């Protein structure tokens, strides 16, 4: 089966005030129809920027600051590079082909309109449906999402709803035009764990019903294991490891992935001596990346004279896994 989405050498640079920030640097990946892939990393690693770039919402206008190709197979069958589309054409892609949900549903919803108004707006704007038809599908959507008392929810304003309910409304708006790809940017981060569990179950159920693909952006490795089969780990604007979740989590090859997994507090095991194996130092600022491997100042496997001088490329391992580390073969041995 051909890919639904092909991202090739995507680079996003933010420049201004004499500073250039490489937010995303030459990122490539594929997404198959109906697949869930998790993009995981810490704040500032560029994961959200990738989601915005696919939506055409980075706000980067200067020539050369946004390069690469983002090829999407449309529902009608044709394939287009989204980077080459006009604003008007992109407007038709958003909602109908690709939709996005965000971390904080309160700031993504309009506080002065009812929930029903906002879902209807999405449907009439993107599909040209009539008001009554849109109202009917809004009600149907909320019911499909398992929202109790859906009629009342349609009449409610966002501030009258709980965080979990607001995120369900955002999902309803995103799914209202049946996109083939949903970009979910930390959709459960602001929610309690019990509500997070509800939303993850809901996304899985909706995916089984609609066959949409999900690009799930998160910093939480636990959530990755719950929702995705394949994952890409990012650090400082680049993919540093990617592969099947079961393999990456079980035997991480990139020292960063390994260190991050080790440092997680786990319910099922106590840390030796009550100490968590922490990663020293901090995430580098994207405007001042260290030379060589961006992770080397924090890496316990870093070799002076090698890792601080040579920039590692993304290498293919035997098992459909890619890793960006000069020493991965030695470390794996």
């Amino acid at each position, binding site marked *: 089966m051909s890919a639904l989405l092909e991202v090739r050498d995507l680079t996003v640079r933010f420049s201004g005030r004499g500073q250039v920030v490489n937010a995303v640097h030459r990122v490539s990946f594929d997404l198959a129809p109906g697949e869930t892939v998790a993009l995981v990393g*810490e*704040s500032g690693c560029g994961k959200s920027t990738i989601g915005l770039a696919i939506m055409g919402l980075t706000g980067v206008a200067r020539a050369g600051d946004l390069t690469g190709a983002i090829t999407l197979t449309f529902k009608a069958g044709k394939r287009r590079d989204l980077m080459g589309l006009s604003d008007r054409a992109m407007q038709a892609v958003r909602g109908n082909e690709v939709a996005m949900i965000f971390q904080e549903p309160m700031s993504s919803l309009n506080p002065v309109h009812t929930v029903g108004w906002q879902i209807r707006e999405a449907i009439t704007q993107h599909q040209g449906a009539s008001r009554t038809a849109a109202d009917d599908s809004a009600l149907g959507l909320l019911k499909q999402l398992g929202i*109790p008392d859906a009629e009342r929810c349609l009449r409610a304003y966002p501030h009258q709803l*709980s*965080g*979990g*309910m607001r995120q369900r409304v955002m999902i309803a708006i995103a799914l209202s035009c049946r996109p083939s790809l949903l970009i979910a940017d930390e959709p459960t981060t602001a929610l*309690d*764990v*019990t*509500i*997070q*569990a*509800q939303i*993850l*179950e809901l996304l899985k159920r909706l995916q089984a019903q609609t066959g949409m693909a999900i690009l799930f952006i998160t*910093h*939480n*490795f*636990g*959530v*990755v*294991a*719950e929702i995705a089969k394949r994952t890409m780990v990012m650090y400082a604007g680049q993919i540093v490891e990617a592969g099947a*979740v*079961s393999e990456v*989590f*079980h035997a991480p090859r990139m020292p960063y992935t390994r*260190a*991050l*997994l080790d*440092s*997680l*507090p*786990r*319910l*099922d095991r*106590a*840390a030796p001596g*009550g*100490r*968590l*194996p*922490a*990663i*020293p130092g*901090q*995430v580098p600022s994207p405007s001042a990346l260290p030379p060589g491997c961006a992770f080397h100042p*924090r890496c316990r496997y870093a070799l002076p004279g090698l890792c601080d001088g040579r920039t590692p490329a993304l290498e293919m391992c035997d098992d459909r896994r890619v890793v960006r580390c000069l020493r991965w073969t030695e470390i794996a041995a």
Partner: protein
Amino acid sequence: MTQPVLDVRNLRKWFEIRRGVIPRVVGHVKAVDDVSFAIQPNQVLGLAGESGSGKTTIGRSLLRLVEPTAGQVVFQGTEVTRLDARALRRFRRKAQIIFQDPYSSLDPRMSIEEIVAEPLRVQGIEPDRRARRERVAALLDSVSLSGEFLRRRPRELSGGQRQRVGIARALAVDPELVVADEPVASLDVSIQAQIVNLLQDLKEKLGLALLFISHDIAVMRHVADRIAVVYLGKIMEIGAARDICEAPRHPYTEALLSAVPNPDPEQRRQRIVLQGDIPSPANPPTGCVFRTRCPYAIAACAQTEPPLEPVGAGHYKACLRDDAP
């Protein structure tokens, strides 16, 4: 048994709901309702629960940053709820707080030195400027920040560094009790572990009693000796951290634990997905407050409010059903 540093008995904080042109009280938000616990020296008590469970209000009422409605807070034998302003200031020399958000809890106009020295100045400790600077430098050193940070401003610091400053400020007056309100929630994963380890080190070195408030029960398992699980302003279960995490006895604790996503894809557990949201504390359910979302609820749960009863050594739960979970 040694005397606890802090002994909280039947603590209650009800916020009044006022309505009308001439506002009058039309109801109460029962943020904290009849909560009792104790913390021993050199012990960490974790307060776990979802947002809206009242955990932050518990922490703040202990220090009287909000005034408790009823109940007693006994700190080293002294009743805190009756202290006058002067005695309260003396009490706060012994009891400090670390806030969740290291961005809004540090004054952006002050230097790091001024921020950490402020409690010393307020309490009249170390009036000599040179001695004070040395003490601040030593405090920063104890949280692994070098002397070059003295003159910096909060905006020049990362989230993890700011949280270290917040910890140094809390420790400046040599407190015996520290309330840490979600100290790692706003930090990156790789920084969380650093701060958790730092708190552990400081507890052992200084013999602190620590109230660790968090919604993340996995973090708490590593930090806390004992854990109290709160829901709608009430303690549902309290016991040793290990017992709570490995053999929970309350249906809410069980559900909370099962909702934590596990990063090991090979360990798929039976997941209990709680239905609905936490009810409003202005109008809590009758009987057991958890019964509306509880998979084990029976008719009797709506009638009687279950008291905390022992189920093991130092382990208590507030649930009518012995067979659950």
